[in-house]
């Protein structure tokens, strides 16, 4: 076997030109290098040809011609503007970007913001990967957190991830129910880098965000601090109803119905104000924080942005689910919240309401008489609208008179 192999190799070696073989090692000439370069260009051309044949024709990859490129490189640069170059680059990226081996699933930082996990997706693996278990050095601990602590590793407290997951799910349920009942959920994360997570969570939950300093007294002295900020009146489907501006001017400022605080250590004043006003709070409690500051603690690492993004994302998703439920209930004519008190309907809206009510009564009567023709109903509605317009006109004329 071995002999046969050796014989074959020897035959092949003899078949090649021995002088050429040895010259490669001995000579100092560069012609062999040039030939190899030419070969590589040929290979490149053939690859491109193959690629153009498989790719859609309208944007074939332009082939690279070394001779023209070397002869007048300046002209090529001048003729091609930056925009053209960029679009070419994008085209090539679209073609070539997928070529290559598949990369196993890995951490992509933007996914936690673009597509945050839902409460159902919370797993111990996710929490561990996002470093939710890392506490602080044992000397810094707050003994009230003893029940959330799994153990000590290298002088650092390790938070029990089971407790984290359980508390996170409970907090998610709270956020969801508050959102479902039309409450104002305020997400607060005032540390550097938490702003995107906070803004994203509030966007999902249709809540409110705060990533700058909490101005002390925004709840207890709200009229002075938030008095200038605008409010609006919405109906159960979250559509804005205009015409209430003058009444809104005199109303007291709004307070959040639930506060989610991602860094309770820096926001003691906020939590204290919430406690004074019976506003429930959710907070990420590290091993050095006091869990009694918040109503619903989530024991987790508040120094890791990744962990904060996971927690904010989960709570945002929970709020999103709650809002969705509320809107589906609103579609069925159910209002899940207590309406605003002391609002008077503006006159313009009152007239409209009356007209609509009249039309609806008419249509109901018609329905009772088993006139279920859709066209007729539409005609009736049109008539009613015309009446309305006529009324308005008549009133306008009277005013002029």
């Amino acid at each position, binding site marked *: 076997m071995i002999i046969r192999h050796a014989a074959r190799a020897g035959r092949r070696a003899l078949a090649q030109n021995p002088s050429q073989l040895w010259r490669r090692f001995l000579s100092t000439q560069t012609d062999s290098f040039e030939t190899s370069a030419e070969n590589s260009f040929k290979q490149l051309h053939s690859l491109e040809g193959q690629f153009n044949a498989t790719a859609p024709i309208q944007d074939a990859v332009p082939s690279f011609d070394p001779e023209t490129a070397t002869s007048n490189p300046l002209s090529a640069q001048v003729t091609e503007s930056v925009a053209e170059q960029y679009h070419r680059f994008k085209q090539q990226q679209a073609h070539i970007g997928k070529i290559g081996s598949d990369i196993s699933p890995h951490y992509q930082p933007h996914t936690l913001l673009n597509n945050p996990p839902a409460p159902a997706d919370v797993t111990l693996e996710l929490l561990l990967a996002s470093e939710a278990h890392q506490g602080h050095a044992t000397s810094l601990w707050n003994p009230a957190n003893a029940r959330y602590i799994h153990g000590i590793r290298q002088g650092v407290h390790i938070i029990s991830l089971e407790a984290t997951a359980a508390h996170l799910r409970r907090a998610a349920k709270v956020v969801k129910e508050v959102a479902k009942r039309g409450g104002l959920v*305020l997400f607060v994360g005032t540390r550097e880098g938490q702003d995107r997570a906070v803004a994203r969570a509030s966007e999902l939950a249709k809540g409110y965000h705060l990533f*700058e300093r909490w101005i002390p007294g925004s709840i207890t002295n709200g009229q002075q601090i938030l008095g200038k900020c605008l409010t609006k*009146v919405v*109906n159960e489907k979250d559509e804005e109803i205009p015409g209430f501006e003058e009444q809104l001017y005199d109303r007291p400022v709004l307070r959040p119905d639930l506060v989610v605080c991602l860094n309770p250590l820096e926001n003691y004043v906020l939590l204290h104000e919430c406690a004074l006003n019976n506003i429930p709070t959710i907070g990420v409690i590290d091993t050095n924080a006091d869990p009694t500051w918040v109503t619903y603690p989530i024991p987790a690492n508040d120094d890791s942005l990744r962990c904060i993004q996971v927690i904010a994302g989960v709570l945002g998703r929970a709020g999103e689910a709650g809002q969705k439920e509320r809107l589906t209930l609103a579609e069925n004519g159910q209002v899940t919240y207590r309406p605003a008190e002391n609002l008077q309907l503006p006159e313009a809206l009152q007239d409209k309401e009356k007209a609509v*009510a009249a039309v609806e009564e008419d249509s109901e009567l018609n329905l009772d008489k088993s006139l279920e023709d859709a066209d007729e109903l539409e005609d009736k509605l049109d008539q009613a609208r015309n009446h309305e317009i006529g009324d308005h006109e008549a009133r306008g004329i009277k005013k002029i008179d």
Partner: protein
Amino acid sequence: MVRGELSRSIWSATEGLFSGARPQCTRTMRLPYRSLQPAARFISTTPSRSAEITSENPELTPDSFTAAPEFEFDMEGEGESEVKVMRNVDKGKSNNQLLRTLRVVPASRSYFSAKPTFNDDFIHVSALLRSVATLPTIPNSEAPRVAWKTVDQYRIMTNEPVKTQRFHRMMHLVKRLNCVHPSLMPEHVRTAMRRFMKDSQPGDIVPVPQVVDEWGRARGVGRRKTSSAVVWLVEGEGEVLVNGKSLSQFFGRLHHRESAVWALKATQRLDKYNMFGLVQGGGSTGQAEALTLAVAKALMVHEPALKPALRRAGCVTRDPRKVERKKTGHIKARKMPTWVKR
């Protein structure tokens, strides 16, 4: 006396031990103290909040108390029975119907930051920058020149107490947006940036090019210190009139006479143009040098090619220096009182 009481009580106690149950009258009223004492014994210090969601079950009488149902955490539509259901049944009271669906919410997501407009702007700008971050850029020095709003102008626009540092952090992002290559700049980014620009931009005001009128006159206006001069130049033999007087009559000093016609002298056009000037305000130096600038401008209308020569002669640039104001605590603009020991 005391001993007698003690012995009597001991006697009655021993008697009670041996005797049977004494006849008692049946109680007509059970536990009277309940009705006599007030129901609430704990007074809350906080204002009472009425329940957000109330359920009214008329059949539930106080006699039939039952334990609360168990929590069912997996149930999806949990608590739906508690939710006050309001159906649009009564159409006669449609006004109330609409009012019953309304609630007041903040107009902006940044309501609780007390600077809603600024924070919304910041979020908008950072989102825009994220969307165009991969586009090719040009260096800041080559970016289009823009006069950005100052903090104070922005504060006036938004009517919010914006912190200077925060504002500059946002403007840093806006300036980065401005560095996107102009040929690839999306239109919405351009419109978004307009919010942070001043109303008037450098290069907006283009001066109207002056022309020689039908009588062959070119007009030029010049200023210096507090004087201002208007000059008409016509082609001629070198006659000069300033406020109706000849140059030697109007200016006593030789230097002033020379500087008034310096633009013509430096370009050797003194004998080719007639000059008529009106000058007012200031002193003789200011008037003479105001005339210089006016003559130079009028000359450039006749012969635009002379501009480099005039610039070299120092006739094109307006001298912006003015008398500096006097300050309090100073004798003049900058002079301090003499230091006196004690």
